[in-house]
């Protein structure tokens, strides 16, 4: 069994465990147990509670599922957008290709986190938590495609110059028709791009949240839970406050191991 296999199984186990925690627990992520804020581990709260008395294990499980689900969806959208733009730029007229790559360059001229920060902060202050989560991952998907599109463009350009494509064009196939046959050949390029984007999006969401620009409370998120670590008085009272960071790093390590395999 390779390390990537092990990582895949562990990641699946982690996600299943998070589902089970949410199904079995009597607490919801926003339920406040006013009698026991900052409580230690107990039968009712296996990983204790936060400063508002909310179950830490349930919140961490929910954050894990939200972050994984959001990152996978955003990554799928990004990869699809990149595939569309990259292949269109390579198989379309030269002017379209030039324009598409110029747009990519404009996006890539700014550091990604800075761009995310700018876009995310330009949204209304009164966004609901669910909307803020959707917006965060939508923004990640909307801004994550240019680097991927550049890689797809290079790959597609290579395919366009391939002998079979030349023969197909000489045989009378139009660019649009050649594109249909080229797309399956790009899958080997798109899959790594899809997998690389997942940990990148999880990290970006955590960084945005830590800057106060991520998913809104009371919805749990990695970034929001990282903010808890700023409270040094809280750290003295309970060690369970480190649980979300430990889970986040574990999840990212497993994702990195999966990416390394491809």
């Amino acid at each position, binding site marked *: 069994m390779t390390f990537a296999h092990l990582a895949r199984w562990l990641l699946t186990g982690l996600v299943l465990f998070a589902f089970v925690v949410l199904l079995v627990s009597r607490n919801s992520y926003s339920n406040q147990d006013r009698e026991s804020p900052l409580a230690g581990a107990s039968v009712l709260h296996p990983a204790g509670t936060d400063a508002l008395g909310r179950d830490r294990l349930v919140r961490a499980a929910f954050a894990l599922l939200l972050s994984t689900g959001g990152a996978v969806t955003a990554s799928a959208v990004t990869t699809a957008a990149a595939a569309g733009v990259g292949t269109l730029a390579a198989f379309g007229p030269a002017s379209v290709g030039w324009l598409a790559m*110029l747009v990519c*360059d*404009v996006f*890539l*001229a*700014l*550091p*990604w*986190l*800075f761009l995310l*920060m*700018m*876009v995310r*902060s*330009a*949204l*209304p*202050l*009164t966004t609901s938590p669910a909307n803020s989560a959707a917006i965060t991952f939508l923004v990640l998907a909307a801004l994550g495609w240019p680097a991927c599109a550049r890689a797809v463009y290079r790959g597609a350009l290579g395919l366009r110059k391939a002998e079979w494509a030349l023969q197909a064009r000489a045989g009378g196939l139009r660019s649009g028709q050649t594109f249909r046959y080229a797309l399956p050949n790009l899958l080997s390029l798109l899959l790594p791009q899809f997998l690389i984007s997942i*940990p990148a999006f999880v*990290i970006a969401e*955590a*960084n945005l*949240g*830590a*800057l*106060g*620009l991520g998913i809104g409370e009371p919805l749990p998120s*990695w*970034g929001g839970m*990282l903010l808890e*670590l*700023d409270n*040094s008085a809280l*750290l003295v009272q309970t060690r369970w406050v480190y649980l979300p*960071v430990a889970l*986040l*790093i574990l999840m*990212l*390590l497993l*994702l*990195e*191991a999966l990416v*390394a395999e491809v």
Partner: protein
Amino acid sequence: MKLVGDLLKRFTRMLAIVLLVVIGSTVLVRFAPGYFSDVREMDPRYARSARAELSVESARSNAIIPLLSAEVGGWLRGNAGISRQYDVPVLDLILPRLAVTGSLMLRSIALAWTLALCASLLSSAGPHPSLLWQMPATLLLAIPTAAMATMCLLAGSGGPVLVMSLLLAARDFKFLDRILRKTWLDPHLLYARTQGIGVTRLIRAHILPSIASQLSALATLSIVTALGALAPVEVIFNVPGVGQLAWSAALNRDLPVLLTVTMLMALAVTFAGVISDRPAEWKNA
């Protein structure tokens, strides 16, 4: 002559990209649904004055062309406009912070490159990728910048330079290790090794010159990564740099500050790209 023409073309493209970034950022921020909102509106003590300021801002920035010309006019006057948040010229805010950020970035990149280069030279000398080197790099890449900075702050050891260096070193190490591992297996190097030429001489005379173009591309990537990590590191460590200013400007919809920082970042990234992607004639010269 061809070299000059090529360079001119690259710089024109660079300026066009920076201009498009500025126009795009202005449109994005100005027409974003949250532009005319202010946290002070939620406080009854400041709500009235905040709304009055917002209505003045609304009248001023009603159309995009006058807004852009006002910003460009600010740059032409040499003060880059007036900050909406602090009510002082933007350049007065940015110039002292540029020195802080520049110094932080320089020290971080230098330390990261030293660490990455030493580790990759040692690691690539072995026959197979060693877990001893790969594991710490993977672990460092799996930790979000904000989490690493927070943990350093809690542990009371390590500052912004260390956090940024570790982040950059882990990324650079992965690339350098791969490049060096491939280079060591080049036939002429294998032959030179069998002839007993010293490792130091091999690195200096053969390896470093042959990977110079990849190293310059990696240097660009380091600058982009460092710029990306600036905001969380400076905010968490409370470093009064450009990243912290950009974060505060983004939170307060301070368009003049945001535009100037955007332009500076775009200039830095595109210029680094132009330098690393040198024309063939330049390389030969």
